[in-house]
């Protein structure tokens, strides 16, 4: 019983972070309709930025989150307003798929040159400390990572549901022409939404950097993770990402524990295929779908 509970706990912790790492992708897809294949690059950039801050200034990755998020927000905004907007306006949404795929390839190679292809991780002062919950154990780093993920996911849900900016984002997602006629600067909101997605991806990268090893080519895995999480949970909302992330975390950990680590990906794809067959819109559906 205890080992099973421990595995479930590990799965939920990992799942919270998976959700955090996917929510930016989900938001961008939900609001702009753009499948951002550069998503994983933003995650990995966040990890490297946190590593840099940690090694050069000695800043804890979690305390450094505002800086990482601000930098990737700006990068996301500029990226959308230039390359992505040009691709979508001159060609189509499908063109953005090609553009983001190409940029992801280039960014990965550039990162391999700048940061080397070596495996990195961020070792904080509390890296080897742990917490005990009765008979269960959780690493302090993972607990901190999970807490950060949940707090920021909750913050994003509040932003979307309770603020004027969030209303503008939802209005733009549901009915862009209606939003423009209501006085919303739709292009700006698209840029800001992309920036927000990038900031969240980067923040998750900083957290992931403390928990798991990473290299420039990890970006592909994190884009894939976002895909699976969104397929499981549904597009466009922090709630959907959380549900999908937790499911994925638990499935991955249970499989690794009871079937074998080699079957983790197989299990993930099995669930993905089942989901696409049974409920292709994800458990919570598309947050803005009624209008599409």
């Amino acid at each position, binding site marked *: 019983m205890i080992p099973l509970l421990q595995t479930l706990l590990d799965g939920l912790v990992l799942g919270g972070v998976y959700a955090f790492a996917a929510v930016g992708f989900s938001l961008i897809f939900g609001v702009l309709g753009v499948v951002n294949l550069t998503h994983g690059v933003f995650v990995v950039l966040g990890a490297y930025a946190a590593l840099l801050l940690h090694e050069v200034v000695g800043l804890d990755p979690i305390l450094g989150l505002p800086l990482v998020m601000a930098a990737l927000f700006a990068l996301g905004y500029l990226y959308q307003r230039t390359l992505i907007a040009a691709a979508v306006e001159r060609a189509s949404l499908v063109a953005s798929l090609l553009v983001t795929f190409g940029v992801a390839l280039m960014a990965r190679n550039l990162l391999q040159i700048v940061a080397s292809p070596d495996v990195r991780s961020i070792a904080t002062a509390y890296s080897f400390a742990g917490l005990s919950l009765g008979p269960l154990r959780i690493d302090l780093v993972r607990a901190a990572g999970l807490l950060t993920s949940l707090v920021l996911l909750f913050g994003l849900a509040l932003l979307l549901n309770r603020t004027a900016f969030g*209303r503008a984002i939802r209005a733009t997602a549901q009915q862009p022409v209606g939003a423009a*006629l*209501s*006085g*919303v*600067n739709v292009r700006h909101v698209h840029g800001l939404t992309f920036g927000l997605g990038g900031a969240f991806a980067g923040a998750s990268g900083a957290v992931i950097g403390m928990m798991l090893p990473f290299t420039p080519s990890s970006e592909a895995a994190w884009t894939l993770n976002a895909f699976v999480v969104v397929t499981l949970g549904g597009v466009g909302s922090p709630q959907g990402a959380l549900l999908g992330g937790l499911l994925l975390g638990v499935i991955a950990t249970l499989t690794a524990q009871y079937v074998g680590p080699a079957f983790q990906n197989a299990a993930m794809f099995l669930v993905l295929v089942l989901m696409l067959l049974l409920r292709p819109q994800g458990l919570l559906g598309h947050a803005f779908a*009624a209008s599409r």
Partner: protein
Amino acid sequence: MSSPPILRAEGLRYAYRGVPAVQEVSLSVGEGEIVALLGANGAGKSTTVNMLAGVLRPAAGRVLWRGEDITGLPAHRVLERGIALVPEGRLIFPQMTVMENLQVAGTAPRAAADFSRRLDEILAIFPRLAERRAQPAGSLSGGEQQMLAIARGLVARPELLILDEPSLGLAPMLVRAVFDLVRDLNARGITVLLVEQNLHQTLRIAGRGYVLEKGRVALSGTGAALLDDPYVRQTYLGM
């Protein structure tokens, strides 16, 4: 025309992927008027008003607002000038509440300063919306959705309200209510450009009108003159 025009469109043209929809449309709207824009399905009415409101960028021609060239400005900036379009199909935010729909419009710079007072005024004009303020807009009836779209257009206190077929798909009683409302709003000082297919009702409240045909202005004149025009009677009224 009794008053000098506040809006002038000169030689507007638009094509969708090379297929012309508006070939040559010029029109003007004077302060305080109700002007009708009429024409059969596909004549180019919506394309024309979408160009006026900044939803579409004209391929040629100019839009002048109180003498200022606003051609090609995006919709949110046209709204700041005081021109609001209530679009065909309403285009409300279906998964947001009635209140949130109005709040989105209330965030525009032009509306933000006195939004709460404006909201009270608007909810007084539309008591049905006040009752349903917490309901998702997508669950409203067609007539209520049209009211919401008009209410949303009024939030920023427009000087010119453009309505694109507000009576489309409504029951006859509601159609009458919409026309009464338009007349009321006009009496409160809002200039109106009304796109309609419902010729009789429209020309009864409109001082002047333009009839579009295949993307061109085929006829224009006072409401009474258009109603008496043999061509109009034959083509649109079947007389």
